[in-house]
């Protein structure tokens, strides 16, 4: 049996017959998380809505288990594919148990009466998402994080092979974002589920995805494993001329540097510099950073935010030459801050810089 459970062939998607994105070719395998990223309005949701048949394709087809979805009955699809979409639902007088139990729909009889087996599975799915305590609570009164977990339980209760999620982490705080994705990851491994979802959070997408699809303009601009997609250059390209920069190693975003003649010199290193860089950036003060080895954790942030960085190559000792360069920059700055407290063989010269600043009366408390 093939590992591929969902694929699209020359799929065009759009509204009212006009195509928004063409030649969508996606292949989703069992046990894989595929994530769609791209700027707002790029059409990530449009693709997902077409996959779940909320929109008719304007061309091409979607195949589920090797069969064209257009030829499958509603029930056949429901037993293989379930969804968690963005629209908020506020059903009247339904407990969380009731909501999760609706996942049994494709398995129940004419009147939809739950068998003990259906109830057992519903309880089990609530346990899987750590929401057993919510079973009897009114669904319209639980928090956003709980709601998403209950809806995830509902989707799992349908016992699908493919799970489609449209921005499942929107409106959640960071703890609930991580929790939801952790549960998802567990499910993918435990049940060999295939997941296709859209995400806004690049850092999370980078960490959770096995395959990343970049939607840009009217095509799938690029797709591949996260390590190929999440490069600083490509991210800047995908999201246009953003004011700021993307750090590929950490998957983090930095705001734009404050340009101009440096007013303050920051002696950083070992992570001590980052909070100071960020504060100066916030306050709009151009600053210089030094002396950093290029493998220091402070370095990428300094590079993104500082007007000028004095650095030496990775694993090199800060030598006399670098010291002189730093001293020259420092001379033009009115103030010096020294968040660095640890000095060793490699950055001994930074201590000298600090002493130099102190002797000129430029060293300031942080």
């Amino acid at each position: 049996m093939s590992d591929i459970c969902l694929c699209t062939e020359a799929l065009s998607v759009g509204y009212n017959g006009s195509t928004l994105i063409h030649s969508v070719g996606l292949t989703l395998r069992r046990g894989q998380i595929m994530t769609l990223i791209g700027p707002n309005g790029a059409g990530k949701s449009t693709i997902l809505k077409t996959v779940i048949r909320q929109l008719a394709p304007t061309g091409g087809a979607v195949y589920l288990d090797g069969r064209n979805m257009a030829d499958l009955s509603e029930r056949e699809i429901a037993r293989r594919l379930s969804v968690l979409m963005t629209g908020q639902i506020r059903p009247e007088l339904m407990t969380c148990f009731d909501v999760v139990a609706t996942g049994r729909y494709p398995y129940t009889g004419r009147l939809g009466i739950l068998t003990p087996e259906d109830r057992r599975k519903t309880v089990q799915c609530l346990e899987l998402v750590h929401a057993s305590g919510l079973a009897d609570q009114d669904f319209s009164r639980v928090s956003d994080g709980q709601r998403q977990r209950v809806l995830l339980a509902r989707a799992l209760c349908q016992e699908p092979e493919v799970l489609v999620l449209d921005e499942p982490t929107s409106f959640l705080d960071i703890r609930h974002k991580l929790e939801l994705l952790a549960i998802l990851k567990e499910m993918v491994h435990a049940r060999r589920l295939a997941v296709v979802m859209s995400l806004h959070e690049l850092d999370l997408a980078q960490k959770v995805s096995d395959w990343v699809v970049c939607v840009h303009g009217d095509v799938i601009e690029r797709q591949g494993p996260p390590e190929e997609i999440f490069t600083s250059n490509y991210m800047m390209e995908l999201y246009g001329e953003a004011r700021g920069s993307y750090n590929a190693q950490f998957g983090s975003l930095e705001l734009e540097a404050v340009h101009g003649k440096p007013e303050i010199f920051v002696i950083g290193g070992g992570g001590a510099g980052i909070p100071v860089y960020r504060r100066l950036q916030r306050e709009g003060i151009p600053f210089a950073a030094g002396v950093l080895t290029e493998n220091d954790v402070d370095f990428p942030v300094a590079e993104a935010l500082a007007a000028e960085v004095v650095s030496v190559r990775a694993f090199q000792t800060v030598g006399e030459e670098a010291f002189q360069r730093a001293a020259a920059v420092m001379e033009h700055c009115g103030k010096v801050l020294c968040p660095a407290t640890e000095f060793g063989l490699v950055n001994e010269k930074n201590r000298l810089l600090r002493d130099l600043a102190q002797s000129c009366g430029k060293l300031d408390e942080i």
Partner: protein
Amino acid sequence: MKNLWFRNGLCFAVLSALVAGLLVWNINAGSVDFTPGEVLSILLSPPDSGIIWSIRMPRVLAAAILGGALSVSGFLLQTFFANPIAGPFVLGISSGAKLVVSLVMVVLLSRGIVISSLSLIAGAFAGSMLSMGFILLLSRQVKRMSLLVVSGVMIGYICSAVTDFVVTFADDSNIVNLHNWSLGSFSGTSWDNVGQMAWVIGIALALAFLLSKPIGAYQLGEVYAQNMGVNIRRFRVELILLSSVLSACVTAFAGPISFVGVAAPHLMKGLFRTAKPIIMIPACFLGGAAFCLFCDLIARTAFAPRDMSISSVTSVFGAPVVLYLMASRKGGRGETS
């Protein structure tokens, strides 16, 4: 689990007892008083042409059947629009039915053609679908539930205005009939009528009950319902047709009756503390029946021997429920996507 079954069973028992009690009370009360014992003996004896058999029984049964139909129609519309204050009267569907029925009456009566109940139902159904069409078009533009209701009320006014216009061209002798009917009343119902309405409404209710599974799924919104395996296109058509048939049948026999479709389902949801269609469809029927029996009792006896229009009584009890719902629920449709 056991508790829930017990609770629901108890609620149904109480409701059924209430309907039965109101039926008896309605038969008793009136300008000629009977004791329950007398009523029972008359009912047990073979049908005769007395007040009880020929006048009160059909009227009382009509009130129960039509009230139940209105209430279920309201419940279906509330599910369809994801809006707790939707109902056949509030959305102008009853008024649309009224308009077409008046047209049919005036045209046919002026040519001396006797109108069959079936053609009245057909006319009412056509009118319901007309209003429904407008509301469906509007609901694409108007997402806020209160605005949708305002639109429905406006459609109701337009239909009423046209109805009045039509009535001015009717023969004098017909105007009285038409006027009484257009205010809404259960009086003058014959046994034949009861039989006809029982058939039409019985079939529509059975079909609605068989749809309770997809209706339940639809309460989570269209996207999820489709994902659960509901054929949305077909289901929407079925729901619209059923709710229109139910309310059209009521309008054809008793004229437009206000607010039952909103008030009764709301009270039932409160009583059963659920919105599950498999419980709500029978519950709404019983609740609507009880509500209309109660209101008709007041309509007949409050200023006896004069009959009040049933709509003025149902408005007194129903409109506050609508106001309460409007005030207590903020936001709009259940789903925003």
